[in-house]
């Protein structure tokens, strides 16, 4: 099983996320994360999807998604692309453990965004593997809850997703 990331430009309207998510569900493909945001063009949203599978599943997923009318552009994100994720993590802390947690946060360059007598919330942005490492280090202190946004990616260099040819225009 490999992990792949797909970027897609989709119409910014209601129901598009349902179409994409339902497509994966009914074809039996597993997605690890899916994030959606608006773009520089208000008519379009950008989706970043991380999936687990093999080349066959990746190929099918991209081709099937490409057939959706609301999906304008789709591409596989290259290995060297910039991929980032945001983590908010609430850890149990008291007077004795707070400074240790602060120290770990400094090493990872995480921000402290909330402190109370019993808990601290940290914010960290980075590659998913960095977030994983940070979470591992915090585990022993007792993670009360955490939230991750899922990966969002953008390719290096001047080429843009909107310049990818659209399959629907080719046939």
């Amino acid at each position: 099983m490999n992990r792949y990331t797909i970027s897609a430009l989709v119409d910014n309207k209601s129901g598009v996320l349902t179409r994409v998510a339902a497509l994966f569900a009914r074809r039996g493909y597993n997605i690890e994360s899916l994030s959606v945001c608006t773009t520089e063009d208000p008519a379009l949203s950008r989706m970043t999807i991380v999936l687990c599978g093999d080349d066959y599943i990746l190929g099918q997923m991209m081709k099937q998604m490409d057939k959706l009318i609301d999906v304008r552009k789709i591409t596989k994100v290259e290995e060297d692309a910039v991929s980032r994720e945001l983590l908010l993590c609430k850890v149990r802390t008291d007077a004795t453990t707070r400074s240790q947690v602060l120290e770990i946060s400094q090493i990872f360059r995480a921000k402290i965004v909330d402190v109370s007598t019993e808990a601290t919330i940290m914010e960290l942005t980075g590659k998913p593997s960095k977030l994983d490492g940070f979470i591992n280090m915090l585990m022993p202190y007792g993670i009360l809850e955490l939230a991750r946004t899922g990966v969002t990616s953008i390719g290096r260099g001047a080429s843009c997703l909107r310049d990818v040819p659209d399959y629907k225009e080719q046939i």
Partner: protein
Amino acid sequence: MKCNGAEILINCLKEQGVDTIFGYPGGTVLDIYDALYRDGTIRHVITSHEQGAAHAADGYARVTGRVGVCLATSGPGATNLVTGIATAFMDSVPLVAITGNVGLNMLGRDSFQEIDITGITMPITKHNFIIKDVKDLAPAIRQAFKIANSGRKGPVLIDILKNVQIAETDYEPYAPEKLTKKPVQKSAVEDAVRAINAAKKPLIMLGGGCIASEAEEEIASLAEKLDAPVACTLMGLGAYPAGNARFMGMMGMHGTATSARLALESDCIIALGTRFSDRVALNRDKFAANKVVVQVEIDNAEIDKNVNVTYSVLGDVKEALKTMLPLIETVKDRPFMQEAAELKKAEKAKRPNLELGHKVIIGASEIAKDDDIVVTDVGQHQMWTAQYYPVKKPRTFCSSGGLGTMGYGLGAAIGAAFGSHKHVILVTGDGCFNMNLNELSTAVTENLPITILLMNNRALGMVRQWQKLFYNNRFSQTDIRKKTDYVKFAESFGAKGMKIEKEEDIMPVLKEALSTPSPVVVDCRISNDENVLPMIRPGATYDTIITDWEDR
């Protein structure tokens, strides 16, 4: 000009050249029906049930090549279309389904007859729309027709809220853009042609895409130039004339032994407009092992989906063949073609004694004209028709392939009759016929020339056959003991009822039935214990084909 949403819908349908729609009125489409009434130029066919309307629009689309249109109210009206839409989706039939829905102020409140039909039909449409603002209506309808009839064709649903039907806006008439087919990629064609020219034993395999792209002339040229045998999937029947010496019959689970043998022996399968479904490829890993497969396919997702192919050309079959044909080298007296002809001859000589049902189908094919339409339901009679009714022209054969919808036939026959203005022969079984026989009243009301050959075996024959083969003759719920007298039934609906009980009845009854320009139900009393042969078990390889029941 100012129009309300319902009027805009009617105007947009007329823009698209729609002359016939199939539907059923109800609370949330009253305004549309009012606009239809006031306009008076579109023929509306009211069916007994919305499912019949969806199948009728499907049959209409299959015989004409144009987009079929069906119309239903919200809630149950909309859900009753679902099986018909799914049938069209699986067989890539261009369909526009229009439903009403409750007004925006009622939406999301579980109002009377409110249903999320766009949610329900999402996986069985190419695309769907819910129209909440009248300004979005005309563009959506125009886009719906374009989506339905371009690329790999398929159904599109438009759900129109009640308030949209009433609201007024400016309507500007618009001539639909002509759908153009894109040229195929040259490098892909060159690779594919090189492989085809190098092949010693090419087999041409035709799927539903050949019918959809209307590529019959190019296919005939290809077969002639290559001097290669041609086999069709169920959906491809009619793309190549069944009477032609190069035609080797159907391919797949119930295909001919000849086509199975040729598929095994060929060194190159030229697959045109087909997706290698499990009923055709059977064992997807072994189907094309050790041979070159060239696939011409309009849907990118179908390339390498079921069977890994060596070369693929993405695009419309007709366009692709137009580019390929000048590069194809002419071959004369190909030994593989002679081998195919001998196999075909031998199979015909070995053909088992024909049963009553086979003889009825063959008899009907002998009386019918080449451009008469044959429609089937799903099951044994469907396969017998595919095997024994020589389909000579494209768009003269309608059958539910992908979804296998029992109950498809009568609705589709009605649509086919409206679309073709030809005599329609519906071959059905007593299981299928019972599912939607209510539409007989529609056929009678519209006085349609439909001959229904009811293969009455008092059983669900195909399922029963699988119980024989895989469940040690435990006939769970497949021997149906209905007491229906189908002759009286037909008469009570205003149709003619006839009966075939023995071989001598066949020709006199069929001659009378097929010369009757109105609905006739012919109750063909066939044995309950027939099998469809040849058969390849699901997932098995072509060399395990069963041609004799005793050798199963």
